């Protein structure tokens, strides 16, 4: 296995507004290697975005953030970097695609010149080369008539085209890690598949690392090599996409997969919802975060946080934070 290119460990992120403080990420981590696609899965508020973008300083302004742990990009410690170095890393090393391209692209700025500027600053191209590069990036992202679109404002493009432009913008600096934060949530179903296919194609061609933040299990099965399931700021289960999607162990992962509707079944009877709601992350209690919604809950679940335990002997570590299921089903652990 190649060494990780973006790696986060033991991350704790507290968010403060004047009235509340929330532990958005509670001792969690992930890693992704070049050429690999990691999907970070979880419901809204589980901390997916905060965990991935927080170490890069990409949280919305106006929220105070307290961040601890380690985060390394290409072996370099991100959290101790100067603001200028971190800015440069964000611009060049990472490319980010956001959820809603309509609001993520500045309505007052033309699309093409932004791409050209990134190419000029980070890929070391001349102004003229950068313009050509921008046009070819638009073309590569599947935008028809890229010469014309270069000088367009965001409102002149459709949502799907805008997300393609956003992808082109994220790629303009030739990043090593592409972070896609719910890249299809705001798009029509037919466009979603196209965007996912485009991300997969780019990943194959460029061999970059991709982090896909999503709650769309379908997108995970299309793109991901590995999956990390996040619940209330903690990693519940992680492993290869095959292991996690076909042999889930954690009760939350099982519930999450069971709640995905299967369009081939006649009714919605095939789907089950997970009862209850995620815990409030303003009050921290010991024990498993999922305990209140779990069928298998035992008294020990409420007193001790379950550790992530590696299962089996597969080449890609499959880790689960649920000793109850492991014991009950006699699952073989790694050591």
């Amino acid at each position, binding site marked *: 296995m190649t060494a990780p290119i973006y790696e986060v460990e033991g991350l704790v992120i507290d968010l403060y507004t004047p009235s509340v403080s929330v532990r958005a990420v509670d001792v969690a981590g992930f890693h992704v290697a070049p050429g690999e696609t990691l999907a970070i899965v979880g419901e809204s508020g589980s901390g997916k975005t905060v965990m991935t973008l927080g170490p*890069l*300083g*990409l949280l*919305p*302004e*106006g929220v105070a953030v307290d961040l601890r742990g380690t985060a390394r990009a290409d072996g370099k410690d991100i959290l101790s970097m100067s*603001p*200028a170095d971190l*800015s*440069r*890393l*964000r*611009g*060049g090393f*990472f*490319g*980010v695609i*956001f959820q*809603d391209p309509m*609001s*993520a*692209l*500045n*309505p*007052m*700025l033309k699309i093409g010149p*932004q791409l050209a*500027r*990134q190419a000029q*600053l*980070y890929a070391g191209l001349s102004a003229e080369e950068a313009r050509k590069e921008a046009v070819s990036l638009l073309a590569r992202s599947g935008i028809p008539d890229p010469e014309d679109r270069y000088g367009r*404002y965001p*409102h*002149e493009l459709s949502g799907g085209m805008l997300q393609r432009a*956003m992808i082109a*913008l*994220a790629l303009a*600096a030739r990043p090593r890690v592409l972070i896609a934060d719910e890249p299809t949530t705001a798009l029509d179903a037919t466009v979603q598949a196209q965007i996912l296919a485009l991300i997969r194609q780019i990943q194959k061609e460029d061999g970059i690392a991709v982090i896909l933040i999503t709650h769309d299990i379908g997108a995970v099965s299309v793109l991901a090599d590995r999956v990390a399931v996040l619940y209330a700021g903690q990693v519940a289960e992680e492993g290869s996409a095959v292991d996690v999607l076909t042999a889930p162990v954690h009760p939350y992962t099982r519930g999450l997969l069971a709640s995905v509707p299967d369009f081939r079944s006649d009714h919605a009877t095939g789907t089950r919802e997970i009862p209850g709601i995620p815990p409030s992350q303003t009050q921290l209690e010991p024990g498993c975060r999922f305990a209140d919604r779990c069928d298998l809950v035992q008294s020990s679940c409420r007193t001790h946080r379950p550790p992530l335990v590696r299962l089996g002997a597969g080449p890609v570590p499959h880790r689960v934070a649920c000793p109850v299921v492991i014991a009950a089903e006699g699952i073989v652990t790694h050591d």
Partner: protein
Amino acid sequence: MQRMFMRRVGLALLLMLAATALTFWLVTAAPGNVAALIAERAAGAGADGAMIARIADELGLNDPLPVRYARWLGDALTGDFGISLRTGKPMAEEFAERIPMTLALLSGGGVLVLVLSLAMGIAGAVSNGGVADRVLHGLALVGASTPNFFVAAMLVIVFSVWLGWVPTFGVSGLSSWLLPWTTIALFPASVLARVVRVNLQDSMSRPFATTGFAKGLTRRAVLMREALPNIAIPYMTTFGAQFTLMIIGAIVVERVFGLNGVGAFFIEAIRFRDFIGMQAVLTLFVVFFVSVNLLFDLLAMLADPRLRRPRKA
């Protein structure tokens, strides 16, 4: 866009018509009698009722109001605003002498508003809750709540009387303009500084600002390159509104600093019941108000690519 433009211009013309009609009626309704004033001026104490009635008849003052307004409007459209009852000179002549003074006051003040409001608003956003932000916020509050006659008096006391840096009165070179410009600019600059600051803050919390950070821009670069273009629209509309209000400030400021402009003329016209002068100045104000607001509304439309280049169907 073109239809919107034509509609705005049409609306502005209607507004001017309505506003001049209203002021015409108000000026007529004010106590005092034009015919009596003219008679008094011509014959002194010898003016009698018969003479006043004859003058009123000659001037058509006994005609119904709409007829008089229509007559006035016809003259005004040809540039004839009548003869000032106070100075005895045609109003067109008075305007030619005084408008440059008022324009110098307003344009200098306007430039100062532009520079001060942008500098204060941007500095506050750069500081973002720091000492500078809070001090500037306080200054803007004081500036927006201090009446201009008081500001003028304080400025004169400090800079003219105590320090002796600038003259207290009249026009003598650039330095004499500093206090009038500052006085007239303080209120609109304070209001606009808040507009800049608040809208920058709003832009900085929008998703496109996060995209700016993701592009590798520093916070200052996100402010200047991503957020600043987005405040153009609210800024221009508010600037237009505040700039038109400055003509009200000009009435006081010209008076206090002894500038011989339209505002000072207006005060004298009221004191001497110069109805002709009052109506002429009010008309000028109406035209100024409506056309400047129109201009800035159109500029704001031009600044917004969504309005300038609507999506093709």
